[in-house]
């Protein structure tokens, strides 16, 4: 039939109909494909088209600031310029190589690394940050490259800045790049691979509070990657500001005192005995956290390599030495094992359990009672009184003062030290010699400077053991109500009123006329106890003290340790003294916290709020 009939002149109607049917089916197929693309998969392709034409350059939001208790800015932000690259379509490996060479020349950076970054950007079609925190000079030269190489651009971002530089560095911490592990952890929280995170100290503890929401510039780019216009600017949202209990002046005194101490190694902590608030926490050697954010890659590398990560204030455990004698006194006097008038003759040595124990004063102290015994830190007196009190009792009192347990300050890597005594020793035999050693803070007893500060605060507050805290309040952005830190008491040392009087009087005498005379501050009542703890090298120097205005309750308690500083009075005492003076706002030219350095005006566009009040001293 296909070959056959035709109703008209000319070709065959059936064949023409068949041809039309075939064409119609093709048309229907195209229509079906249109439905598939434009109706069914519409959203998917709309997204693909949107991804094609937009490039987002993220701008790191200003991080929340740290303030001290008087509103002094301890960490803030400043604008920094970053060099970014938006890979244009159709860029060649050769073009990238010459671009990498050009940029490397201006930045003094590694050409190969740059080229790898550029190639990665091209492969993944994403913008990359080639360099951050450009120095002004390099910036001008690089901005000329923008006209030569499409895709190169400069953006402004917020960069962390620590106005005091080398200041409270172990406490504040520093900012650094994410490693593979933290990237896996932070990815879900909106972090990007090139985000910086707090790597240590409070920057790390309060990472999520401090971090703001990054802003960005959503740009329309054409197929060649050329910027066609800005579609949207997503404003950044600054992070939450954190007000610390820190006193910048006290911190400064501690930092500088330790840095210029005999060995430059040590730690200090200062608490407010009325609240447990930390006024200062310092560990030396320290570092300048700004160096991690430098535009000089060598400096960053060097800083990271030499980073003194060890925070001696909470992670360093040392024998307390004679500073522990106040605990022996508290135990023995309170339990009535001896009285203030019980006398011991010190010939410079004594024999206990067949072994000779020496006094630090080889000549001997002659007849000693409680007050001169502590004032002169007579070892023979404390060997004897320790034996009367007994190891178990001393151990119990040391525990009551918080020794041998973490203070639970909110920082990582805190050590709990080692509380030593018959109970800790357990089944093994405890000898009188052990008690004698314990009574002068030697042996296996180990404490951290922070624990000693808690002990000093407990002495000052007549028995309140605090959990030390850094924060006073957190101003959340985005409407969340402010967080206020409350004092947290974790223990009480309940002593008789007479015991406190005897302890305080003896500690006052230590400073006014004994081993701690380096800490005398005119106009203040200063109480203290020196310590010299023996160890394989030179002795460590301790000074534990607290101070009050006459007629008021003590408002600052300090513990200072100088590694291998030999004598507590001479090495640690002056540091404690300048810290206490700073706490009372006393003029001490060497230990004065400086405000923002000259010319260090906080840039306007980084001000998330009215400029912070500069330091105002309390009366």
């Amino acid at each position, binding site marked *: 039939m296909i070959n056959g009939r035709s109703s008209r002149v000319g*070709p065959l*109607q059936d064949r*023409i109909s068949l041809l039309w049917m075939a*064409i*119609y089916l093709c048309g229907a197929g195209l*229509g079906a494909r249109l439905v598939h693309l*434009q109706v069914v998969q519409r959203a998917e392709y709309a997204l693909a088209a949107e991804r094609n034409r937009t490039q987002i350059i993220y701008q790191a939001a200003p991080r929340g600031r740290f303030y001290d208790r008087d509103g002094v800015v301890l960490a803030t932000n400043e604008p920094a310029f970053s060099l970014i690259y938006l890979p244009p379509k159709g860029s060649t490996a050769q073009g990238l190589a010459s671009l990498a060479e050009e940029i490397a020349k201006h930045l003094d950076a590694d050409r190969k690394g740059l080229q790898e970054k550029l190639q990665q950007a091209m492969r993944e079609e994403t913008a990359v940050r080639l360099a951050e925190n450009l120095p002004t000079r390099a910036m001008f030269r690089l901005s000329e490259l923008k006209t030569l190489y499409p895709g190169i651009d400069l953006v402004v971002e917020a960069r962390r800045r620590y106005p005091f530089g080398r200041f409270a560095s172990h406490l504040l911490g520093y900012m650094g790049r994410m490693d593979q592990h933290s990237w896996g952890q932070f990815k879900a929280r909106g972090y990007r691979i090139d985000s910086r995170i707090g790597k240590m100290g409070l920057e790390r503890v309060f990472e999520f509070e401090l971090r703001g929401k990054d802003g960005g510039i959503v740009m329309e780019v054409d197929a060649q990657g050329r910027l066609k216009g800005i579609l949207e600017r997503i404003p950044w949202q600054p992070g939450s500001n954190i007000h610390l209990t820190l006193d910048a002046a006290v911190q400064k005194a501690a930092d500088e005192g330790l840095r210029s101490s005999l060995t430059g190694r040590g730690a200090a902590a200062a608490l407010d005995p009325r609240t447990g608030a930390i006024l200062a926490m310092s560990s030396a050697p320290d570092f300048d956290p700004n160096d991690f954010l430098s535009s000089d890659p060598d400096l960053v590398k060097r800083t990271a390599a030499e980073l003194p990560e060890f925070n001696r204030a909470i992670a360093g455990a040392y024998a307390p030495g004679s500073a522990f004698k106040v605990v022996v006194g508290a135990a023995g006097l309170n339990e009535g094992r001896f009285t203030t008038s019980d006398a011991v003759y010190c010939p410079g040595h004594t024999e206990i359990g067949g072994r000779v124990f020496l006094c630090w004063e080889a000549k001997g102290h002659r007849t000693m009672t409680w007050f001169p015994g502590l004032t002169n830190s007579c070892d023979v007196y404390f060997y004897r009184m320790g034996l009367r009190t007994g190891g178990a009792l001393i151990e119990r009192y040391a525990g009551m003062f918080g020794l041998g347990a973490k203070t639970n300050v909110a920082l990582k890597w805190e050590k709990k030290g080692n509380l030593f005594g018959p109970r800790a020793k357990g089944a093994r035999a405890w000898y009188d010699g052990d008690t004698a050693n314990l009574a002068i803070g030697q042996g296996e007893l180990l404490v951290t400077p922070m624990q000693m500060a808690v002990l000093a605060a407990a002495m000052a507050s007549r028995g309140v053991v605090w959990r030390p805290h850094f924060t006073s309040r957190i101003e959340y952005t985005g409407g969340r109500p402010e967080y206020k830190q409350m004092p947290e008491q974790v223990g009480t040392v309940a002593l008789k009123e007479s015991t406190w009087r005897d302890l305080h009087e003896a500690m006052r005498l230590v400073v006014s006329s004994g081993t701690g005379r380096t800490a005398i501050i005119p106009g203040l009542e200063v109480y203290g106890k020196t310590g010299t703890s023996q160890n394989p090298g030179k002795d460590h120097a301790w000074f534990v003290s607290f101070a009050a205005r006459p007629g008021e309750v003590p408002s600052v308690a300090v513990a200072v340790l100088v590694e291998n500083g030999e004598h507590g009075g001479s090495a640690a005492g002056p540091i404690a003294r300048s810290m206490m003076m700073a706490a009372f706002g006393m003029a001490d030219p060497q230990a004065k916290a400086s405000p923002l350095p000259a010319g260090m005006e906080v840039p306007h566009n980084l001000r998330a709020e009215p400029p912070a009040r500069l330091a105002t001293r309390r009366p």
Partner: protein
Amino acid sequence: MLGASTKGRVDWALVLAASGLIVTGTIAVLSASSHIPGYHGVLQRHFLALAFGIVLFLFGFGFKYQIFQDQSRIIYALVLAVMVGVLFAGTVRRGHRSWFEFSLISFQPMEFARIGVILTLASFLDRRGRRITELSTVGAALALVGAVMVLILIQPDFASALTFFPVLIAMLFCAGASMEHLAVLVGYGAVAIAFPLAYVLCQVHFPDAGPGTLARMVMETGRLGWTTAAVLMGIAAAVAAVWWVAVMMRVRPRSGYFIAGAAILIAGLLSGIMVNRQLKGYQRNRFVAFLAPETDIQGASYNVHQSVIAIGSGGLWGKGLFSGTQSRLGFLPERHTDFVYAVIGEEMGFVGALGVLALYLTMIWRLIETARLSRDRYGSLVAGGLASMFALHLALNAGMCLGVVPVAGIPLPLVSYGGSSLAVTMWALGIANNIYSHRYSFL
């Protein structure tokens, strides 16, 4: 025009459909080319061609169409002349020596050849009407079209040359050629196209197939060596074996079938090998992009990928004229010429793209009706040839934009930017309308 009824003289459906396509195409070209340098030049040439096209439409419509049959020898001579001339005097654009350039205008003679060949072939087939089922008729028709195809292949414009072949088959089909002959032609064409596809497929998926595997054999065959000879011998032997078995089983098949079968396979394979060897790198990449689009998004399949994104992202109502991001920002290549359908899909959405498809099918339907109603065989064949040509261009161009057909630089007549194509196509529509208007007249 004797006795012609004034009623129904103009096929308004055809004219309206074509006008709708031209208007839509003009808007799309205006939008798509607005961001390329030389925008004004593009517009000037487009409207000039449009005006010229109206004149040509009237030219095609004004005379009695039999004049084109009477002058078919001259038309064919003209076609051959311009196609030979362009090989000597033409300028090279996009790798093809296919343009005549004069100081003011330039012209692509192949567009004229498209219509000229249809007119000539219709005339030839009409004259051979009584001997249409003879092999010599088919052979002569093949030679007639083949000469032009060869001239285009020399340019070399592979894709455009190929488009003549399906039109030839469709016209032979309409003219009533025997199904056996058509089967031979279709079979030959299919084998010739299938071999390069198979070759590319093997190359992509089994680049290092060992000796003895089928893929390795396909690739060896493509090299025109001993393997090729062995394969051809094998085909001949296999056909002979089947024949022998059939004879043994007393089926008594017609020997002609087997000779034709072997001839198709061998000739097709040889043509396929030649085609494969002639393929340029970018053409091979288009095959790769179509057969294995996931292999290289940035390279060969980039264009189609972007086109599919453009159409898909248009959604139901489109992004609005002049607002298509894919075309405006240059992600869509060749956006006012080959990929203009993607621009329509992006900016006018499903409604616009389906509208263009519907208008096109309407136009083809009117041409088919013209073929049916034509008072003579020549007019019917011309209309049928035009219908199949438009259908082929629609399938190849829209199919390419939609990612269902390999990329071939085939424009969408009346819609894509291209002055020669627009003007000549309007001339062809004039002729078709002429045929329609004379459907009741008897000389």
